[in-house]
């Protein structure tokens, strides 16, 4: 335990509880069951969406994923197809309709796994209306229009890419026109380099002397606050962890950032037994530390209250992840107030949570990190895995020798 923990007396929380194997096993079985339920639930019915796009649609013919749409007079009025692309929380399914003249009759999102507050903004932009009536080879497939209005880069890219794939299906099959698939080059720029540098600083701080460690921590956290927080607004959150657990891995080419961030988070815990991300990089942690500097943040809490809060946090994180796995909606698990502070967007609940946490930061050291952050639970789980592996090697390594 570091000296900055808000406990009244020393409490060895790093000591693992014994005889909890049944609880761990129960949790694992529940999560696997939730994953299985989420995965085996049948896919969406596209027909109501096709009917929304083509008002005169009377019946359809489904041939290899392309719906031929007919009117009541048995006249072909167009085609519709679905296209899927990787969004923020997982795959996003879009349907697009093309009439017999090759003009877009409409497009809509059928299914998504995005964070609700951001997706609502994407859905209400004029982008979908702006497509209607345009020839399919005139669409410029540019997500900047949506991004400009919403700030939801990942979701906007997925919507545009989904429409491109849906249109490409119809164009290739019915008009014999090839709509080129966008080649996604490996995105390795300032952001990715910054993540590597920040983790390197954090690891260096782990090995270096105490006086220099504090300096490195502050450097990393302020950089994290500015880059991961205010600039990119993409700190690690429970939605992203749930997306990975649900098996929705983002595209490596465009989302290398997430692999670096989550990979660094997991690896540093497994190697050092402590999260370098939480102590040296997390932008929300940095915001709380800055506010703590102003207020002093030296209140000591009784051990029982800390234990109670930790237990409640673990329960709520478990419930949120289970719900996300069952519904296959990783975005719905997110309750963190990160978007409220870094992008001024969020639900009322997230705004209230932000207010409470930041005011509490004046008197308690990093209250979110200690009592609410789902990453703390993830850290504990990985610490348990690490400790179990070490114990296993100690116990059976000798026997094997």
């Amino acid at each position, binding site marked *: 335990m570091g000296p900055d923990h808000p406990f009244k007396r020393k409490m060895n929380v790093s000591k693992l509880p014994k005889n909890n194997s049944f609880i761990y096993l129960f949790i694992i079985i529940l999560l696997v069951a939730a994953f299985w339920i989420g995965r085996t639930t049948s896919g969406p019915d596209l027909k109501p969406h096709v009917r929304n796009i083509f008002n005169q649609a009377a019946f359809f013919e489904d041939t290899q994923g392309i719906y031929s749409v007919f009117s009541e007079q048995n006249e072909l009025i167009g085609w519709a197809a679905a296209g899927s692309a990787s969004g923020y929380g997982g795959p996003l399914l879009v349907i697009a309709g093309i009439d017999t003249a090759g003009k877009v009759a409409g497009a809509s999102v059928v299914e998504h796994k995005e964070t609700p507050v951001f997706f609502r903004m994407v859905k209400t932009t004029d982008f979908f209306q702006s497509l209607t009536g345009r020839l399919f080879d005139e669409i410029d497939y540019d997500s900047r229009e949506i991004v400009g209005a919403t700030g939801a880069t990942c979701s906007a890219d997925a919507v545009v890419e989904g429409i491109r794939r849906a249109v490409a299906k119809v164009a290739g099959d019915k008009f014999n026109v090839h709509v080129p698939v966008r080649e996604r080059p490996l995105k390795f720029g300032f952001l990715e380099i910054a993540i590597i540098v920040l983790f390197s600083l954090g690891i260096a701080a782990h090995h270096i002397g105490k006086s220099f460690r504090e300096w490195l921590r502050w450097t990393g956290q302020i950089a994290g606050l500015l880059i991961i927080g205010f600039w990119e607004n993409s700190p690690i959150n429970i939605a992203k962890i749930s997306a990975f657990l649900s098996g929705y891995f983002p595209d490596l080419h465009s989302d290398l950032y997430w692999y670096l961030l989550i990979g660094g988070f997991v690896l540093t815990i497994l190697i050092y037994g402590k999260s370098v991300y939480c102590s040296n990089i997390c932008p929300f942690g940095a915001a709380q530390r800055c506010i703590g500097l*102003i207020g002093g943040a030296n209140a000591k809490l009784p051990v029982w209250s800390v234990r109670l809060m930790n237990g409640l946090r673990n329960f709520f994180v478990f419930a949120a992840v289970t719900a996300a796995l069952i519904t296959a909606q990783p975005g719905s698990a997110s309750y963190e107030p990160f978007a409220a502070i870094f992008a001024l967007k969020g639900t009322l609940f997230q705004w209230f949570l932000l*207010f409470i946490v930041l005011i509490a930061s004046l008197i308690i050291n990093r209250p979110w990190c200690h009592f609410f952050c789902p990453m703390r639970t993830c850290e504990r789980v990985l610490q348990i895995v690490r400790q179990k592996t070490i114990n296993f090697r100690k116990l059976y390594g000798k026997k094997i020798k």
Partner: protein
Amino acid sequence: MEFFNSGFFWFLEGIILCIVIIGFNAWMKDHAIPMPFWKWTAFVIWIVLFGFNVAFIGTSIGENEINAAIKGGILFGLITVISGAGLWRLIKIGTRSPVQAKNERE
């Protein structure tokens, strides 16, 4: 709502503000906290910030923009409370012990 637009409301607000400032000054003296001009300047700026926060919430509610009142109130409220905490730590700079202050007065 008419009450808030009346001159009487502003008259009352002026009286309350005077009482707050006089009371604050007396309390500072009692607790031997020195108040040079820069502390008073910072305090006045903070009072203006606090007033802006209250005005923002009140105006937004008046315009029936409840969402804006809540979100703006939380955002500016945070800035106000956090800067208030910082200001309080600044104000406490140079605080003497009550015994020392009493001796100095005598």
